[in-house]
């Protein structure tokens, strides 16, 4: 983690989200963040979340992930042991202006969200030809 970090983790980023998080308890999902020359990829573990309960939002420089897990429970269930207590996930990140938030590609498979955020054209690394003579 250096000053060059493209995606900085900020748990309590936007004030609105902080309030929302305070209202209802939510789990901070585990993420992997990898940057390559064309952009940044974020993977987040969201077990139990169907596509329609997932919301990925971009507001100003913040990217937020909010999701709700749907676990089928039979009637008359009494829980005896719970390691997952809140069926909600929430996490937000601030995004570098080098990244193009209008072209985010999101896919959710088996409870893993993959977000691909491409770099802006102008921010792509370029090789400059040196002419001899």
């Amino acid at each position, binding site marked *: *983690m250096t000053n060059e*970090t*493209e*995606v900085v*983790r900020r748990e309590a980023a936007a004030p609105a989200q902080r309030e929302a998080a305070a209202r209802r*308890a*939510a*789990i*901070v*999902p*585990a*993420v*992997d*963040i*990898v*940057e*390559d*020359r064309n952009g940044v*990829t974020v*993977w987040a*573990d*969201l*077990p*139990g*979340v*169907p596509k329609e309960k997932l919301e990925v939002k971009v507001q100003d420089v913040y990217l937020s992930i909010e999701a709700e*897990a*749907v*676990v*089928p*429970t*039979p*009637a*008359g*269930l*009494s*829980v*005896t*042991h*719970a*390691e*997952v*207590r*809140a069926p909600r*996930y929430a996490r937000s990140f601030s995004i570098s202006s080098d990244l193009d938030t209008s072209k985010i590609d999101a896919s959710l*498979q*088996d*409870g*893993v969200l*993959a977000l691909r955020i491409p770099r802006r054209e102008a921010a792509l690394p370029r090789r400059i030809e040196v002419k001899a003579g």
Partner: protein
Amino acid sequence: MSDFFFGNFGTDLFREFDRLQHHMSALASGLPTSLRANQGQFPAINIGSTDDSIEIVVFAPGLDTSKLDVSIDKGLLTIAGERKRPEDANRDESRSYARERFVGSFRRVVELPSNANPDDVQATYRDGCLSIRIGKHESSKPRSITIQ
């Protein structure tokens, strides 16, 4: 032992330390200090019961079900498997800023109550959650006794 020190020296060793630390902190504190999902063991498990069944939910996202092993032996339910890092993450020229998601093989064991019926088990994997339903023996189900 030599494999442990020389075979996968590097990230694997540190990952083992991470796991050990998670495990130790879970033992020491008893209660989690925050709701952060990557605390404690992978995968997280919720257990409940109804009159007819024992319901177990395993929060295990991103698994290949063919490599997931669920078995019951002598009253112990074992869930074992392996999770790999996505291939893209290992590309050259890439920099990693966060590696919180669990990678590696895992094994979790749940002791079942004596009234669990190992012949009546259903397991389904959906949206990264493995739901296991184990029936209870008929004789253990609650019933009302009529007074004559």
